[in-house]
């Protein structure tokens, strides 16, 4: 119990006027989790001795990367002017891949703390989420964090924030999540400034799902924000999008451990457990109502998660395929956005074509497969969704280059485009514009933020961004630039499929859909990589890049001329035989492309760009 809240409101019986629902908008590394930890400590919901750094970020990967993937909500008591309040802090994912989840978290709040590192200023990601928050009419509390750092420039960035959201630089609070300095004032400010939630206690129950988390012991834990009415234990509920009904086995609030309550009323934030085992049965953005007294209108804003980026995932050891399937089936339970179907590749064997919200989502899934399921996997180059119209007016949706219609019958190819916002110190404007132009970007506008930082906005093909844009942007700006993007429809583009052929045989994993102007560069890159990586064969192996039947780049691997062991006398025979047996064993791991034997590692290295010199000996 907090020393500052002697009489905290009780869940299920809290006057909405005493509730404050808020989230923290911050860039990765700007200290959101540390600040949240400090709030938990100061409000007394986590005893000092139980405090572990970044309490709310539970997954290892989150902790390591300092980013929050899955949000949660914590109820904290706070007292101001002799009145006890219930503060619900809703933790939001910070990355663009999860912008839909972010938008639902924001919709669950009335206010947001805009948290900015006092040494770095605001980043593109934060700006994007700030726009979302303002769109949702949230009250914004600007805060500079890390003011204890020697490099902090609070005056400068307070002005930047004031310029951005209006008001005076003096309104910008200054805190240190690390030392706790200013955090009590911030909690007071939350109570004072953020409006209380409004809702109709007598109307049919409507609660918005803002998160849905799979727990291997308890099944799916659904986080909701009550809007109207009340939800109670043992009640039958209905999901308004699917009409599926479940019974509430447990209802409660997190503070921060799950604590069962007698129910949840208007404006409250808490969790439901119904015993379902798959997060798809409890979808973020959906409206929960009761079966007995159903609401007629769902809450606005629900959409199905739409995969934007596709990649083939293959086990490096082909015999792990069943394990990979099982692992994906399990991940799916906790990741509503992950989609996949079996796929076969000449080069990589059996695997799955997977759809992701974005590149980070892809990275998180592959990392979880490695870490939680101990699987060695390789991901093919990410691809986006193309709409291809053939001359006979058929429309084909292409998520994999192999689906790209062949022959000359293509009337039009449409590719997804995004609005990208890049924030960087002004010195890098030229470099960034050059990069964006080279990736077929169209400049939308440019604005100065404060004295020395610029926001540059571009329309760009998503396909260009998923290739290696972000890595390039970071390396060309010494890490200073930050990027955010949002879907902005599609456009027709002169796109072609480039195939890579080994001795005339197509190697599917290397086919790519690229702009015609980039086709040659891609062909040269991939043929060059493969020439370095594929061991010499007994015959010359041409490596070609082709658009349809037209060869655009060519390399060749010269035939091996000598592989005989010069000496084979009495003492050599046993070792020689063992070596032969080992080669036989090794051959099982070889992939055959026509007559060409290619070690799986060569394909993997070529895909990942790790071009090491091949071992000349077999």
């Amino acid at each position: 119990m907090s020393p500052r809240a002697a009489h905290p409101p009780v869940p299920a019986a809290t006057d909405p006027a005493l509730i404050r629902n808020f989230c923290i908008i911050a860039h990765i590394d700007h200290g959101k989790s540390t600040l949240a930890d400090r709030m938990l400590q100061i409000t007394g919901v986590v005893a000092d001795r139980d405090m572990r750094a970044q309490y709310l970020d539970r997954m290892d990967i989150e902790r390591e990367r300092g980013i929050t993937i899955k949000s949660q909500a914590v109820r904290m008591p706070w007292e101001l002017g002799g009145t006890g309040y219930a503060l619900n802090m809703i933790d939001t994912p910070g990355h663009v891949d999860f912008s839909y989840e972010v938008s639902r978290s924001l919709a669950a709040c009335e206010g947001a703390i805009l948290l900015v590192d006092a040494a770095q200023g605001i980043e593109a990601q934060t700006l994007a989420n700030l726009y979302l928050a303002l769109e949702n009419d949230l009250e914004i509390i600007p805060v500079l964090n890390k003011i204890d750092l020697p490099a902090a420039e609070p005056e400068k960035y307070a002005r930047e924030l004031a310029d951005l959201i209006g008001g005076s630089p003096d309104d910008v609070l200054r805190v240190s999540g690390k030392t706790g300095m200013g955090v009590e004032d911030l909690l007071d400010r939350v109570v004072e400034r953020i409006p209380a939630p409004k809702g109709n206690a007598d109307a049919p129950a409507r609660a918005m799902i803002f998160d849905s988390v799979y727990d291997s012991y308890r099944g799916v834990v659904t986080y909701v924000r009550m809007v109207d009415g009340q939800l109670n234990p043992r009640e039958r509920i209905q999901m308004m999008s699917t009409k599926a009904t479940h019974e509430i086995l447990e209802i409660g609030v997190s503070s921060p451990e799950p604590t069962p309550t007698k129910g949840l009323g208007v404006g409250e934030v808490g969790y439901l457990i119904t015993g379902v085992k798959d997060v798809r049965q409890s979808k973020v953005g959906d409206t929960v109502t009761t079966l007995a007294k159903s609401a007629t209108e769902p809450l606005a804003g629900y959409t199905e998660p739409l995969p934007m980026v596709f990649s083939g995932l293959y086990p490096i050891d082909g015999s792990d395929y069943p394990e990979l399937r099982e692992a994906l089936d399990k991940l799916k339970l906790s990741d509503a956005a992950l989609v996949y179907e079996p796929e076969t590749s000449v080069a990589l064997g059996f695997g799955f074509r997977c759809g992701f919200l974005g590149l980070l989502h892809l990275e998180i899934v592959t990392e979880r497969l490695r870490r939680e399921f101990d699987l060695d996997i390789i991901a093919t180059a990410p691809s986006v969704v193309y709409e291809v119209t053939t001359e006979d007016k058929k429309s084909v949706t292409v998520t994999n280059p192999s689906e790209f219609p062949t022959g000359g019958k293509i009337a039009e190819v449409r590719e997804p485009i995004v609005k990208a916002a890049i924030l960087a110190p002004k010195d890098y404007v030229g470099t960034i514009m050059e990069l964006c132009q080279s990736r077929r970007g169209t400049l939308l506008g440019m604005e100065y933020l404060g004295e020395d930082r610029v926001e540059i906005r571009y329309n760009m093909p998503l396909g260009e961004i998923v290739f290696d844009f972000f890595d390039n942007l970071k390396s060309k700006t010494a890490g200073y630039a930050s990027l955010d993007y949002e879907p902005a429809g599609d456009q027709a583009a002169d796109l072609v499929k480039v195939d890579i052929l080994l001795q005339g045989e197509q190697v599917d994993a290397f086919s790519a859909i690229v702009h015609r102007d980039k086709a040659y560069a891609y062909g040269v890159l991939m043929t060059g990589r493969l020439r370095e990586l594929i061991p010499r064969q007994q015959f010359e192996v041409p490596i070609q890049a082709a658009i349809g039947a037209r060869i655009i780049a060519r390399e060749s691997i010269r035939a091996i001329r000598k592989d005989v062991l010069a000496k084979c006398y009495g003492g050599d025979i046993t070792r020689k035989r063992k070596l032969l047996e080992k080669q036989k064993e090794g051959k099982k791991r070889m992939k055959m492309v026509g007559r060409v034997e290619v070690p799986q590692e060569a394909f993997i290295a070529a895909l990942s760009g790790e071009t090491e010199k091949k071992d000349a000996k077999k």
Partner: protein
Amino acid sequence: MAGPLPIADPAPADGLLPASATTDAASRAFGVYLHVPFCRVRCGYCDFNTYTSGELRGARQEDFADQAAAEVRFARDVLEASGAPDRAASTVFFGGGTPTLLPAADLVRMLGAVRDAFGIAEGAEVTTEANPDSVDADDLRRLADGGFTRVSFGMQSAVPHVLAALDRTHDPARVPLVVGWAREAGLDVSLDLIYGTPGETLADWRTSLAAVIAERPDHVSAYALIVEDGTKLARQIRRGELATPDEDLEADMYELADDLLGRAGYEWYEVSNWATDAAHRSRHNLGYWRGDDWWGVGPGAHSHVGGVRWWNAKHPAAYAERLASGISPAVGRETLDHATRETERVLLATRIREGVEVSSLHAGGRHAVAGLIADGLVDARTALAGKLTLTRRGRLLADAVVRRLLETVIE
């Protein structure tokens, strides 16, 4: 070849062989190999089981002949007790190391032990390896008088900078002298060459081949340099002090050797060996490739009798200790099953001109023949006549040929 020895069964202390090893021994030739594990200096490329005087840990060169003689007697007893028929040695080969670091009298004494234990067959081939700077005319005469018929000189190259890169100490000018002395003593002569040494050019190699041909030896061996892990040469290459041998250059060098030796009247009979005629092929080495029996005497020596292979303790001190305690010096042994013997047969016979009978191959191997002909790896005419003989291209890619022939046998 580098690398640890394979995991194998422990060798029995009494050295006795299973009946399967000796039942049809009478159909196989029997040879004796004596490994003399001493060198004056260790050459940078060498990973053989050999020791300079500083590395002997109490083992003494002068005791070696007696120890080897003791193993020869042990060999006779084991073969007899295992039910092998009496077979005189049809070949004896002294290798190393540098056998001629020992006095000629020691070598002759060891040969005498073989004669006493097994007998030496009429017309047997008795060879010793020698460094050009480790023998003189007297040594060679004494060896010939003692029963040796052949000497194989480790010439390696006729080009000083190549010899230096190999750490070879002899003066190239000594080669004609020692060959002349061997001839005078009535010995057949083989010259050994190494190609592909870092820094060696095709022109250097041509010089060495010309020097060899000028000496008119009966037999020539030419080995591509193998960079073995753990050798000084491997370290020098890793540190970038010497260039990695280039396989394409080595292929060019092999082809040049085959051209020049062929033009000079030598004919290949094994991938790395050429002789003036069938009578001058190394019968001892052919025994290895034909799957004959041999007993390897000395530290680290390998033996084979009827599908059983074993190898001795490597260090001369450990070797001597075991013999002195009356137990077999062998420390590892493997008894090959039928499939493994077949693998070895194809792997070895493919290397020699005699080749592999097509009819002896497993169905999978026979199936591979057409492809080998099409790829120019085996000679079409002899294949049609029922025998697989490698073309020159096939000799350079012999390991690939073996893999293709064995694809279905091993699986």
